[in-house]
């Protein structure tokens, strides 16, 4: 790059900076009620909420069981999910044709495969809430990283399982 082209680039940068500053200038005088400029915020709120291991309570997408018998969703009642706090989840189960499964027996397993350990607690389903919803109590995570939650679901004479994988960042 020649000095001349460098100079042009520097001037263009200056022009850009000045125009950018004009663009945001009104924000300083009218902070009240001014919406945050979408493109300008350097601090993403979700980032600064970091707890050394967290995720949104509804971060996990519904998933089909291994043999496709059930569709299962798992939503934390603690939102965001944070480490070191024992809490509950709601598990929802329906069949592939979207009929709620109201008579399921559910056993729970999971942990951190990479660390070769399970949950620090023994979570279990304590209540059938109806309409295919089940209360899973005793969930706890004790560190950030990738966790798995496996549900083995029996309904009538059918059994299938699903494993959710998620990361607390």
């Amino acid at each position: 790059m020649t000095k001349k082209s460098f100079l042009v680039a520097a001037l263009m940068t200056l022009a850009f900076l000045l125009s950018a500053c004009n663009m945001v200038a009104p924000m300083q005088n009218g902070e009240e009620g001014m919406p945050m400029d979408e493109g300008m915020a350097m601090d993403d709120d979700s980032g600064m909420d970091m707890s050394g291991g967290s995720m949104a309570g509804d971060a996990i997408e519904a998933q089909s069981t291994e043999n496709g018998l059930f569709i299962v969703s798992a939503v934390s009642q603690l939102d965001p999910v944070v480490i070191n706090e024992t809490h509950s989840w709601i598990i929802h189960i329906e069949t592939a044709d979207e009929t709620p499964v109201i008579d399921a027996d559910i056993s729970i397993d999971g942990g951190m495969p990479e660390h070769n350990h399970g949950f620090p607690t023994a979570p279990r389903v304590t209540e059938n809430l109806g309409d295919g919803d089940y209360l899973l109590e005793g969930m706890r995570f004790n560190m950030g990283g990738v966790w798995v939650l496996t549900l083995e679901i029996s309904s009538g004479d059918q059994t299938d399982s699903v494993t959710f994988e998620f990361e607390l960042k």
Partner: protein
Amino acid sequence: MRRLIGGALLALVALAITVALLTGELGGGGPFGAAFRDMMGWSEHANGRGLSASALSAHSWTEAERGLIASLSIDRLPPLPPDPSNAFGDDPAAVSFGHELFFDSGLSPDGSVSCATCHQPESYFTDGKRLANVRGADTPRHTPTIVGIAYSDWFYWDGRKDSQWAQALAPQEAPVEHGGSRTAHARYVLEAYRSQYEALFGTAPDIGDESRFPAHAAPIDDEAARAAWDGMTASDRQTVNRVFANIGKSIAAYSRRIMPGRSRFDDYAAAALVNDQARMAELFTEEEAAGLRLFFGDGQCTDCHNGPLLSNGTFHNIGLPLQEGSNFDQGRSLGTLQVVDDVFNCLGEFSDADEEACVELRFIKLEGDELVGAFKVPTLRNVAETAPYMHNGIFPDLDAVIRHYNHAPPAFPGHSDLVPLAFSEEQSAALIAFLLTLNAPPNAPPELLQPPHGEE
């Protein structure tokens, strides 16, 4: 000549941009200027203080890293929640009563041992010994601090108690600790502190009849004490247990108040949160910052030492060597069975909690290889002041601790949660330098950090 003018112009423009950004002229110091400075690793406060390039990079953290640092700060410690199993836990009269009991060596048959014998306020409520030792006999475990312990779900290194008040009872009957018994201690407290007891717990029961309430009776290993206990009626045993539980609840009301103080690290975390690098550089040396980086980075220390107390409150086997001549200590795999059976646990009749509130006990993990030889992760606040280290006091200093983490030998039995860090000497020194920034005196009313008025 054109090149010269071009060069001069370029220099001028660059200077103008820099000056404008740093002084905030450009955009009136508005968000863009701040964002740009942020992006470049400069802060408002760095302006004109001449931070060196290495200082800037030592204290330069990504947004995610700043979030992680803040997550360890005492500013994130929530107000202490009530202990549902202890209705007296936040009663000022119980705090005062418990303060006296904590320092009272009358709670031992020879008058030589109180809680404060091992939990010494001047030593961050530890005793500086490898293993807790009174009357010249070692206990199997090292004395942990009680500072901030009220936030725990489990007590003792193996978590064999699930409340501070239940924990406070066990040493009183352990032969190698206070060496007393619940009938003796109930009788002593009702005599020495009758008015304080009754003001809190109502009319004291009459346990003066030694034919019904033997001098030394308790469900402990001592055969005579156990036989005496077994000889009591269920109702009389319950009466004594109730007084004994109330003694524990009072001691817990006191020890709940001993909180960790604000350390230099916490000030650093506050500066990191707003990315004030000049302030960060004032608070931490480059080595300390490098140690912090290793702590949550390559060291993976925050897997277990996380949150504002730098502990996840759960149990891990880290493949510790045994003390010479000692047997394998099962740790958590035995502690789980003991807490479930404990008459003073959260679900027991002496607990003030509803069953619903006993979440930890209801969902206790009872099975799993990872419980074998696992011990509770201790807080690292004031770690430099609480040597020796580990449940068995096996390491005399932090150098020895880091050496263990560097090598991480496999555990036997059980499996170690560690992977060898293999840190260089320089890295190990940096990590220790960071740990020293966690020092701070306990945060509690000054009168609670010494024996109650009128006692030694």
